[in-house]
């Protein structure tokens, strides 16, 4: 007989994932909005943790501030291709475009990282773990839940990291449950491991894997878009890349 029920283990596993993703927003997802001409406000899914990027048929829309938005609105309610957006995630998940869209654009659920970019309004966002949670069972991270369109639902922490990390959090909480199995010493042991590996894996994912490599000896340090002649990676030339992850 299992010591703890599957539901309890799953609950703590999910909670651990949520905590990790709130502290280290590393999961990125995309959704295409259905745009209606004359409508400036659109509601986003709860799983939108924070917006990373919005493109209108491939062209970036810039975020704006309340102050600037008020000034813009003072001009009037003109319509056109939006150049700016305002996102208020305090209390409600509503995004507002300026100018108000003057065309209707249907959304698609697939190829949001590919061919659909040119024809859709795409929001790229940091997501909480809930994006992959099944709306019925509430615990299946590999199934796309709700109406969030996920590119086949794979936006998950890499499995090699996820299992080791979340097991520590789940154990730290399971041993705290008031029962004959309660053991505060073991809970503290796993909690220490959770804190250590959360920081280590978070840094690995956010600060190492998701940043530009900068291994090439580059001829355009100031990003002057003239043609350059990139060379072999620096380690081939002898410049040491003495990072613990390489």
């Amino acid at each position: 007989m299992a010591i703890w029920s599957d539901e309890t283990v799953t609950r703590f596993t999910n909670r651990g994932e949520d905590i990790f993703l709130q502290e280290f927003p590393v999961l990125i997802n995309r959704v295409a909005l259905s745009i209606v001409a004359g409508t400036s406000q659109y509601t986003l899914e709860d799983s939108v943790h924070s917006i990373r990027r919005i493109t209108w048929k491939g062209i970036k829309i810039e975020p704006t501030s309340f102050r600037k938005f008020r000034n813009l609105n003072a001009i009037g309610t003109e319509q056109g291709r939006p150049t700016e957006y305002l996102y208020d995630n305090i209390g409600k998940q509503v995004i507002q475009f300026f100018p108000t869209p003057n065309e209707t654009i249907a959304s698609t659920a697939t190829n949001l990282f590919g061919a659909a970019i040119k024809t859709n309004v795409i929001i790229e966002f940091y997501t909480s773990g809930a994006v992959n949670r099944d709306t019925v069972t509430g615990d299946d991270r590999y199934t796309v839940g709700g109406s969030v369109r996920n590119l086949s639902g794979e936006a998950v922490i890499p499995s090699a990291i996820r299992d080791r990390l979340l097991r520590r959090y789940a154990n730290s909480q399971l041993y705290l449950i008031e029962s004959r199995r309660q053991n505060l010493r073991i809970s503290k042991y796993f909690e220490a491991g959770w804190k250590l590996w959360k920081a280590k894996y978070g840094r690995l994912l956010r600060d190492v894997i998701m940043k530009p490599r900068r291994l090439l000896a580059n001829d355009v340090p100031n990003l002057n878009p003239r043609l350059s002649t990139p060379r072999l990676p620096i380690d081939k030339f002898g410049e040491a890349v003495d990072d613990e992850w390489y």
Partner: protein
Amino acid sequence: MSTASWSANTSYYKITDIASDAFYPIAIYDNSSRRWLEDNVNISQLDRMRADWEVWEGSPRYWLPVSHEYIAVVPRRSSVSSDTFDFYYAAFAETVVDTNVPNIISDMQYLIEEYATADLLEAAEELSKAVTYWRNYYNGIEKYSKRVKLLAKPAILRIA
């Protein structure tokens, strides 16, 4: 390293579609232009270059990781061709089965045993015993890491 074909109208490539065991990318070499793609730009720098860089078409020149799942290649190819690129990456270790020879040097293969023992002791709630094995494992990993870097030293001497 894995070799893959460029896709048309694709700004983002999924890492595991290029190489199923890829953990994170290191470098990309375009076999058609015979150039290493530049890897020193981030998203905001691309935004400053072109607001529409996601649909910028041409011969790939830059690449950057956008998440642990995707890389962006800029500009993107507009048509399908047989041209390929070499994708250099750090890989996940293969799943160990009984018949495997571990993919690390023979005198350090005991580390796998240390890890497995520590993990099992932890599951059996024998924490103080597990800590001993964990200590052996992490000390060994550190030593092995230094050794691997030392082995690579001749390749990273400055030639200029």
